């Protein structure tokens, strides 16, 4: 069930009516849990079984933990091994198995079973991080383990966030799950702009840009002009696609009485890589910061007499962003993309340009923005490239253009990118200069009508489903 499909909205309407008719909190939670598992099993029933078993294991392990002592550590390690093992298996099996199987076959061993294709269950990467944060916090003693299985299972499987986040923490979601929820009209008034915006960004913007971008990145050796146009197109597509999912997710959660986290805060206006990651996929960045970056930096600071300053500044971002890269997918491009941001963050920090850095003067600010935007776009080029060989071939051996046709196609894609990014720029300007008044509702009405005009019988999946 895709958030833009009719099936989903029928499912949601049925749930919505039943949910608000049931006024008892425990029954509401049970209903939401049931709906979340139906939603997930709709994709593949075994996904729901895997989710259920892993949730039960973590619930049990967390309850066995004592706030301090070796036992908590043991249970935490067990949980880490299970969760990360599962994630690594599903995410990287296909990446390694062919090579391993071929090597074993060359040694004369029969390994046909190794050729089985393993599909990554959608959302596994997201709910694994949710559970890991909970387990780490319980082991640290900053969180009391839940003694309500239904509430805990709902926290893990809450369907608006299940497939592609936001990765909300237990501390944010659980109090809302535990409290009594009664219908308020404010839920609807907060939700509708998010739903309109989400549908517009996905159906009109992302799905209109995607076909040409996909084709350019499918070419054997496109010219640089095409690659630049494709990169800019993808830069818009991925923002529209992923933030659309977040908007729809947040809107659906709002209608059920939940306030979930924002994941995007105008990321392409960032001036530094640190600021970019504070604005892009915010809940993932916060997770990486709290559970990898800070602990690593604290560990290094304890040895600061033995380590040079540049190493102290470089290792945490490099390691954190490398992990972010491999979390996004199995493939060299993702690793390089992660390291690329690691180096960028470290480089900016070594130059003294921290996340909150703001240059003096409009020209300098514009220049800093332009430089960062080029870095961001280049990052998306690495991320979207089919392989590093393809990318290096294109960058080193492709000419600027293979003919006039390249200019024509590039200009078609660039016009689309500009035209489809205009509504997002207008939204930013309205939020800045006309947050109240008739123009905002008029803007949303225009977007709604565009959705009607652009809607098709089929919509592609959201990009972040694959992670």
């Amino acid at each position, binding site marked *: 069930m895709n958030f833009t499909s009719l099936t989903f909205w029928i499912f949601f309407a049925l749930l919505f009516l039943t949910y608000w008719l049931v006024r008892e909190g425990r029954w509401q939670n049970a209903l939401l849990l049931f709906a979340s598992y139906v939603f997930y099993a709709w994709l593949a029933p075994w996904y729901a079984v895997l989710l259920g078993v892993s949730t039960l294991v973590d619930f049990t392990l967390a309850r066995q933990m004592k706030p301090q002592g070796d036992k908590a550590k043991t249970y935490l390690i067990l949980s880490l091994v299970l969760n990360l093992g599962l994630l690594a298996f599903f995410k990287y099996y296909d990446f390694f198995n062919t090579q391993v199987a071929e090597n074993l076959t060359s040694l004369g061993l029969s390994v046909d079973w190794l050729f089985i294709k393993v599909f990554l269950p959608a959302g596994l990467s997201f709910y694994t991080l949710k559970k890991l944060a909970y387990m780490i916090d319980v082991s640290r003693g900053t969180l009391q383990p839940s003694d309500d299985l239904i509430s805990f299972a709902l926290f893990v499987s809450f369907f608006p966030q299940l497939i592609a986040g936001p990765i909300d923490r237990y501390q944010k979601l659980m109090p809302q799950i535990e409290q009594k929820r009664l219908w308020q009209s404010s839920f609807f008034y907060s939700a509708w702009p998010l739903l309109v915006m989400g549908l517009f960004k996905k159906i009109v913007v992302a799905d209109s840009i995607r076909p040409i971008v996909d084709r350019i990145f499918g070419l054997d050796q496109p010219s640089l002009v095409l690659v630049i146009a494709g990169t800019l197109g993808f830069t818009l597509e991925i923002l529209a696609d992923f933030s659309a999912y977040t908007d729809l997710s947040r809107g659906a959660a709002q209608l059920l009485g939940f306030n979930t986290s924002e994941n995007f805060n105008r990321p392409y206006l960032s001036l530094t890589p640190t600021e970019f990651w504070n604005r892009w996929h915010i809940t993932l960045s916060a997770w990486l910061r709290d559970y990898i970056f800070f602990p690593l930096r604290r560990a290094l600071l304890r040895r600061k007499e033995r380590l040079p300053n540049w190493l102290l500044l470089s290792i945490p971002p490099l390691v954190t962003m490398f992990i972010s890269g491999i979390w996004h997918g199995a493939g060299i491009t993702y690793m390089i993309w992660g390291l690329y941001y690691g180096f960028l963050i470290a480089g900016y920090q070594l130059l003294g340009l921290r996340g909150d850095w703001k240059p003096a003067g409009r020209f300098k600010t514009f220049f800093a923005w332009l430089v960062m935007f080029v870095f961001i776009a280049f990052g998306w080029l690495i991320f979207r490239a089919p392989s590093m060989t393809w990318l290096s071939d294109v960058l080193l051996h492709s000419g600027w253009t293979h003919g006039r046709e390249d200019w024509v196609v590039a200009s078609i894609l660039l016009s689309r990118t500009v*035209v489809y990014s205009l509504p997002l720029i207008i939204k930013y300007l309205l939020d800045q200069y006309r947050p109240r008044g008739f123009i905002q509702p008029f803007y949303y*009405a225009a977007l709604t009508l565009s959705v009607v005009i652009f809607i098709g019988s089929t919509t592609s999946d959201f990009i972040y489903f694959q992670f």
Partner: protein
Amino acid sequence: MHEFKQYLLSLIVLTGLVSGYVFYRYADGYPFPIGAQFDADIRDKYRHLLNEEDPQILVMGDSVARTNVVSNLMAEGTSKRVSVISEDGAGSALLYLILKNNIVNADSKPYTLIVLFRDTVLTSTAFRVHGNFLAIMDEFAGADDDLVLQLAIRDRMNPLERLAEAYFPPYWARAHLQAILASRILYLPTRTLLGCSLECSDEAMNSVFGNQNFDPDQFNRAINLAENFLYTDENLGFDHQIDQSFLPKIIQLCKKNNIRLILVRTKTLRFSREAPEPRALTEYIDSLSSYASHNDVALIDFSHSERLRPALFTDINHMNSDGKKVFTEMLVEAIGPILNP
């Protein structure tokens, strides 16, 4: 609350304005007809081809018919005149229209019609019937071919879509409105800066994105993705699909016109040791085979042939020049006993 009221009001005003434009520019009546309409003109290029070539055997299919069959070699092997009809990307709806409005209307009808197909194409009624394919279907369809639209498009719409098509002008006219956006805004810089018209832009797109320019792995992935539709639970359910598909009509037309029909399942590299053919597809092919034999139609299945090695393919569906020869030889061998029982 106040903002939402303003939103609704704006939406009503904007919808009214767009609807007024749609009525003024495009509408003939109200409620609107649901789904596309075919015009009366029928392109008859294949009728002419048959009249010119007078083939005894006609091979028909999508681009695979062109890349997999050497007509001269087949003519030599069978000692019969052979023609090939290949429409890129053709689904069963288009093949049916070509048969109905071109082949059976030709003065020189073939004795044998060989239809090349992949997996569930013959009963996946809604496969490749939208966008450009709808325009191509329109070329081979007449105004009385409404049944094709009914089966391929209207029956697939959900009630909400049908309601919106009939009564909501912006939705009914969405293809026109998108075309306006494309021609007036999206292509404007290309036209102004590069002096390239819409046709010139289309030519550039076709040239840059020609099949030969794609990275083979990427291209195969794209084909796989595009053809996922053939392997949905719905399309793998033979019993459910057959009665609403064009296959019974194709069989009926051939029988009525004394054309011997042979169905040939081609090989695709979509399935491999890593991702074997799903059981539902095997069951589907068993059902198709029983159905064909029940209707006295021959079914030849090359999908698991070891002779069609991966090295003979240019992508997961199409064969290279060596593969084309091997495929044709196999086809000649396989149809021999059917042509000369």
